[in-house]
């Protein structure tokens, strides 16, 4: 599960203080709120990408507050995917595994597994420049899930997609939950997405997170 207690973060002039929330294990939690309220900042603090000024972050019962991002076991899909322009799709899926020094055979097997599940089989030798929006999102998702993290953080993964691709991606996200049992924190301002996918909804308003019924 994701558990945040009394978290305080400061970014320039913007600050969040004593924010607490949690997402039960295996659930798809939505963090919602108006633009500019600090949703992405909270996500970054969770991943260890922002220094925090106070509070505690625990993932799967383990305190990770002072751990670097690499040690937290979180997969991140940021806004616009942030794929690496010089790597092929195959290299994206293998990136985290190569870092962990997996045997080449194991890496290839995992890459094939992800490619089949996310329908990336035909795209493995392409670079990000040759991918559509939906394809790029699936690659970003595959990259984030490649090393089997316990937690998945999504920052507005569906906002840049057209209706049809959006529906497809919703399907993919549902299969992610079913397939992996990963705990998801999904940041968005779209109620429609929440209605389709959420197990629990958290609303960030006036610097505090309140739980809403899904």
């Amino acid at each position, binding site marked *: 599960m994701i558990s945040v207690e009394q978290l305080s973060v400061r970014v320039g002039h913007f600050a969040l203080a004593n924010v607490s929330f949690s997402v039960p294990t295996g659930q798809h939690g939505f963090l919602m709120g108006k633009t500019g309220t600090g949703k992405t900042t909270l996500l*970054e603090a969770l*991943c*260890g*990408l922002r220094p925090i000024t106070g509070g505690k972050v625990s993932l799967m019962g383990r305190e990770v507050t002072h751990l*670097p*991002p*690499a040690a*937290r076991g*979180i*997969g*991140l899909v*940021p*806004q*616009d995917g*942030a*794929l*690496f*322009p*010089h790597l092929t799709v195959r290299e994206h899926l293998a*990136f*985290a595994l190569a*870092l*962990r020094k997996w045997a080449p055979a194991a890496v290839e097997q995992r890459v094939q597994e992800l490619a089949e599940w996310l329908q990336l089989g035909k795209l493995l030798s392409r670079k990000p*420049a040759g991918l559509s929006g939906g394809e790029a999102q699936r690659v970003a998702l595959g*990259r*984030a899930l*490649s*090393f089997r993290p316990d937690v998945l953080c999504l920052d507005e993964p569906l906002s840049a997609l057209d209706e049809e691709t959006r529906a497809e991606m919703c399907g993919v996200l549902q299969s992610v939950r079913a397939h992996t049992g990963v705990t998801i924190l999904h940041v968005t301002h779209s109620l429609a997405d929440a209605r389709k996918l959420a197990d629990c909804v958290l609303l960030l308003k006036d610097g505090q997170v309140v739980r809403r019924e899904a």
Partner: protein
Amino acid sequence: MNANTSASSKPPAPRRSDWPFWAGLWLLAAFYTLLIVAMLAADAAFTTPGQFWRALQSREIRYAIKLSLASSGLTTIFSLWVSVPIGYLLARVNFPGKALVDAILDIPIVLPPLVIGLSLLILFQTPPGQFVQRFIPITYAIPSVIIAQFTVACAFAVRTMRTTFDQINPRREQVALTLGCRRSQAFWLVVLPEARRGVLTAATLAWARALGEFGPILVFAGATRMKTEVLPTTVFLELSVGNLEAAVAVALLMVAAAVTVLVLIRCYGAEEPMGKLL
């Protein structure tokens, strides 16, 4: 009814063509382009191929060519070594006094070249400078050529690398960190490959500046033939003895080198559509 009358009483939209605007732009572009071309054409017309090859036969000029190429090459390598980390630091980290450091790093770009040469000369006259010179001779020896070139070339490289890293979205490094990278791994595996076009630009700029550097070298390294003479110095020396033909021949050599490098960069830059800086 009302709408009709108000429509007919409106003055007609001013009908002016855009051609004076475009004509002005084209004229200015033509003027400057032609100035450059005319300059080079005049040079080329002044000398003959015979004089050109004769100049290349001279021992002194051959030495100058070798020294120029070797020193610019080394300067480029040192400049990249220094400018890539500095550029990354400036682009990613906010530290107290950053604006001041930024301004200081720009000084070699705006300072008159002779002042740079003079300052370097005086620096190596100070006790610490003299201490260093007990181990390696610097002033009026070859190392001074490289130091003089580096001082200026590196500033341009730093500017370029700062801009390059500024334009690279830090999100990619952040994702790399979550995937398991240490900061240094994220830099080598994700940031640097994306920055390679910028690195190439920085290298080109540094090399071009180093090759053409004259003022600082004249003051700090002197103009000793067969020792600290680089190609710009050759032009100066030939000019000062009234040997205009040889001066122009060497100048053309440098033009040829510069144009070749420029063309190579443009060709490489055109291969991939994602080139941002050139």
